[in-house]
């Protein structure tokens, strides 16, 4: 199993009381609540924690892109990837991922990934995402054309990596007279492409297509949903006439390990609750702007959201642990949860988020140590 240590880089000094007065921790959260002196310190600590993971034997480090939010301080994840390259030796660095539709010229993404691939001598994994709905508010890009822009940008980037330039790219949204990448990517034909997703059926069908066979990573979902999405990928692959490899299936989840289940919950409870209730807090209008998903998916989403609203809006650590969204417990509990998922889906890429919400570095480090000592060897078997 491939094991990655992933970080969102939240701004942990957020004044939750002040933030609660606003619609969301995204897009409209006044940036006066960000203190650059504290923020600079955060960057240093977050990067240290990722670098520390290399020593523990992880296969990769993961970063990602979000804009105008306290949830993650990485609007430009490639900058962090570049810093990580300088501070690590052999570990893979996965950018999970760049949001393709929200740029006006995807060539820049192709170039930056190619640069990182050269700088790291082939250690880069290139994630492609559409960005979450809020990104369409903060970038101004029209969500109605999100899918179309994603596919066009993807085609442009992959062709730019593979085909000798210069040549001309023509599509509905992007028209580039000269495509001619300097530098070309280090890996041949290009860095591996991974697709993190929240499980839309359109994305599953596209990623699993025999022309692509892109690893598909399900993020932040309950055990039931992760199982369903990964199974859908397998079934889709069979429809296409092949058997999906475990390396095409990934699961990204917050993980916390302590000596006992009780202690783990006590130490990680506030971290996980702040992640889901404070940092991820946003309205439906932000999460799913019109056109971001199909009419039918949007309808299903609103129906689900309505049902959720009639129950409790607050997600407790118990709920998140109970439905398997967060993997928090003793080494034995954590091993069992991962094994259970492996038995159900045959997935072979685990992306652990070891720091989440306001969780301190000291605790995150202890959890990483325990994971490396008590869980990792078992998964390597």
């Amino acid at each position, binding site marked *: 199993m491939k094991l990655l240590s992933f970080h969102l880089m939240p701004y942990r000094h957020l004044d939750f009381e002040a933030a609660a007065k606003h619609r969301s921790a995204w897009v409209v959260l006044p940036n006066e609540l960000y203190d650059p002196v504290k923020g600079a310190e955060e960057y240093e600590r977050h990067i240290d924690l990722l670098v520390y993971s290399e020593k523990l034997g992880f296969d990769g480090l993961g970063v990602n892109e979000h804009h105008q939010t306290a949830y993650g301080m990485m609007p430009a994840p490639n900058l962090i990837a570049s810093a990580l390259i300088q501070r690590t030796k052999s570990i893979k660095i996965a950018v999970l991922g760049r949001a393709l539709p929200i740029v006006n010229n995807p060539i820049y993404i192709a170039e930056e990934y190619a640069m990182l691939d050269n700088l790291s001598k082939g250690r880069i994994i290139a994630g492609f995402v559409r960005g979450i709905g809020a990104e369409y*508010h903060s970038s101004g890009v029209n969500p109605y054309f999100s899918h179309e822009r994603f596919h066009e940008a993807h085609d442009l980037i992959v062709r730019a990596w593979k085909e000798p330039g210069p040549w001309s790219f023509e599509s509905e949204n992007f028209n580039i007279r000269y495509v001619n990448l300097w530098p070309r990517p280090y890996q041949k034909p290009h860095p591996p492409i991974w697709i993190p997703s929240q499980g839309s059926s359109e994305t599953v069908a596209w990623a699993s297509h025999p022309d692509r066979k892109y690893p598909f990573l399900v993020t932040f979902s309950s055990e039931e949903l992760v199982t369903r999405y990964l199974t859908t990928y397998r079934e889709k692959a069979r429809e296409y006439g092949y058997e999906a490899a475990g390396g095409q299936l990934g699961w990204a989840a917050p993980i916390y390990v302590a000596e006992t289940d009780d202690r783990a919950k006590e130490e990680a409870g506030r971290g996980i609750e702040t992640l889901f209730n404070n940092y991820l807090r946003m309205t439906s209008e932000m999460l799913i702007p019109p056109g971001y998903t199909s*009419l039918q998916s949007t309808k299903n989403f609103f129906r689900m959201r309505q049902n959720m609203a009639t129950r409790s809006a607050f997600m407790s650590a118990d709920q998140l642990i109970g439905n398997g969204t967060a993997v928090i417990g003793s080494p034995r509990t954590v091993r069992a949860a991962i094994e259970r998922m492996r038995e159900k889906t045959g997935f072979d890429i685990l992306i652990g988020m070891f720091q989440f919400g306001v969780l301190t570095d000291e605790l995150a480090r202890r959890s990483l140590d325990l994971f490396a000592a008590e869980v990792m060897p078992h998964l390597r078997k």
Partner: protein
Amino acid sequence: MPAQRTSDVRIDGVAIKLHRVGQGVPILFLHGANGLPQWLPFFDALADGYEVLVPEHPGFGGSDDPPWIRNVGDLALFYLDFAEELGLTRFHLIGHSLGGWLAAEIAVRDRARLLSFTAMSAAGIRVPDLPSGDLFIWGPEETVRNVYYDQALAERMLAVKPTEEQMDILLKNRFTATKFGWQPRWLNPDLEKWLHRIKVPAQVVWGREDKIFPWQYAELWMKRLPDARRLVMVEHCGHAPHVEKADEVIPAVRAFLKEASR
């Protein structure tokens, strides 16, 4: 009261729902971003002596949603074909909100068929440093409260729970509104400089308390339309004057149409 008639008409291979009422000189009314959730008394009141045509735009309500109509410019040319197909040689054009923007895009392309032009709470241009209210970030209830000035009216609107079918149509309308209006927000940056081409009698109708396009937008329209005859600024009124203050808007619009027909 004349009866309202609804038919499907096919233009450029696109079937759209067309509602009509009355007989006489045609008035083409172009609806806004919310579509046409219900027939309005405003249309019936206009129909005395006129034939009021109220199409549901491609992508809205019961009309087809062709992927090749990608922007308001496409929609404008579609409606020029519509006017030709229906044989509308001389007609009054009224557009509300998104429909006002659309009306202007039609008129700058071809004003030959127009008897008059009415921009009501119209999108399409902007007053610098006075951004429109963002109905894409507002929640559904918030939107209703912001569209109407009279909160008792908003309450009554909110009390009516839409059926499943109506919900589906509202979502479809919202998707299409997003296609046309998200970026740049409710604007064609190239439109304002061509408004001088609308050389027909024009009027501007606005609610003083419009929270989407503030009243200053009305003044910009008045400045740019070369034959702007009157500004109907409706006090204590939000974004939909023809709904919220129909009693004031109807006589004003009828008086203008009469004058413009001369």
